[in-house]
């Protein structure tokens, strides 16, 4: 072989290699382009996942997120499920809240959807022996005054009442749930109970508002009390008379009739001023006398009575959220 022939053979081989390399390099990009084209031009199959395999990634990401969210929610639930703390006050104990709720439940007529207790009865059950209260003082009167001073104070309405309200609503919810189960009440009955209780508390608040703002009402109650006192005195004299004291008996009997008439007349006037309150006539008078005693005898002002009314309104409005 001549040098020329060897050179030609080498040239052919080198160009053959170059051709082969060039072909292999160019073929793959062509395939990629074809692949992209086919994906773009083909119809979208909803059952096929295109592009990144999200199915393997997405659930992982979303599951992690859901778990975190659930955990956060659980934490939040745990926070809301925690019973509200009973306010640290010196004049009443935690048992009193349960006693009051039990009193409402026991004195509720579920057939007629109303409460059967009078305010006088309520005062008897909580105000006579002061069970559930921790009060300073030597006798019952002093202890009661101590309790009223705490109840009417600004610190009670601003600091203790919000905590107490949450606690009362929590306990009410709890006790009502058990009561509903025990008595097989439908859910509507539960709501009716709360609505009745709300209306009762609002009615008390309405009368306190009127007593705190209308001076003529306070004067009317004062006169009513004076007439009632004089009637007791006349009765006491009358009951002690002998059969032979006919003239005196007739005179006192006449006086008793006149005093009762005057009392009834005044009672009608007072009740007319309280017509929109929503309590029974007996309760209206009782609450009127109670409020008057707080103002006249215990020395509390109308501002303090109005503050108590506002707290009761606040509590009543929160009841249906329980």
């Amino acid at each position, binding site marked *: 072989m001549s040098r020329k022939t060897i050179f030609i053979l080498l040239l052919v081989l080198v160009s053959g290699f170059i051709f082969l390399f060039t072909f292999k390099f160019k073929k793959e990009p062509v395939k990629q382009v074809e692949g992209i084209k086919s994906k773009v031009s083909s119809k979208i199959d909803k059952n096929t996942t295109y592009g990144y395999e999200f199915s393997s990634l997405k659930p992982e990401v979303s599951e992690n997120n859901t778990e975190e969210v659930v955990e956060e929610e659980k934490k939040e639930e745990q926070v809301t499920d925690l019973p509200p703390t009973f306010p640290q006050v010196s004049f009443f104990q935690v048992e009193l809240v349960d006693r009051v709720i039990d009193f409402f439940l026991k004195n509720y007529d579920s057939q007629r959807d109303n409460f059967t207790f009078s305010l006088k*009865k309520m005062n*008897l059950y909580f105000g006579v022996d002061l069970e559930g209260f921790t009060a300073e003082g030597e006798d*019952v009167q002093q202890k009661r005054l101590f309790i009223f001073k705490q109840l009417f104070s600004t610190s009670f309405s601003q600091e203790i009442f919000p905590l107490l309200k949450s606690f009362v609503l929590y306990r009410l919810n709890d006790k009502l749930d058990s009561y509903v189960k025990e008595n097989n009440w439908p859910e509507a009955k539960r709501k009716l109970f709360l609505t009745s209780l709300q209306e009762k508390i609002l009615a008390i608040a309405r009368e306190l508002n009127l007593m705190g703002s209308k001076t003529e009402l306070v004067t009317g109650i004062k006169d009513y009390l004076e007439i009632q006192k004089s009637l007791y005195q006349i009765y006491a004299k009358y009951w002690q008379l002998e059969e032979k004291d006919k003239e005196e008996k007739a005179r006192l009997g006449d006086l008793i009739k006149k005093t009762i008439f005057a009392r009834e007349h005044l009672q009608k006037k007072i009740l007319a001023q309280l017509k929109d309150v929503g309590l029974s006539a007996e309760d209206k008078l009782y609450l009127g006398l109670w409020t008057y005693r707080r103002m006249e005898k215990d020395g509390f002002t109308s501002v303090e009575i109005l503050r108590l009314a506002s707290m009761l309104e606040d509590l009543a409005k929160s009841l249906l959220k329980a």
Partner: protein
Amino acid sequence: MTKVLIPILGKEVAPRFDLALEVFIVEFDSKWKVVSSKNVILPESSGEEMCSLILKENVDIVLTNGIEDEYYNYLKWKKVKVIDNVMDNIENALAFLIREERRYE
């Protein structure tokens, strides 16, 4: 020991529990012999105050004439025995009580 309270008006049992201004409290031993007795004058007539006094004095039995349902039920709830509609003088009322109580001994 049994403690009895009677709302009184003069020497009689008071016609109304909540209007009485005076009470007679007497304590008996197990054989119904009087151990002690006292009269208490109330500052004003009030059913609530009367109930309060009854509880404070740890009274076992109340002998009274007319009494409102609310006071009656409250005292019963507080485990105080209430004998109502007693219309007589204090001596006769107590004699009646002792006679009745001895019947069940």
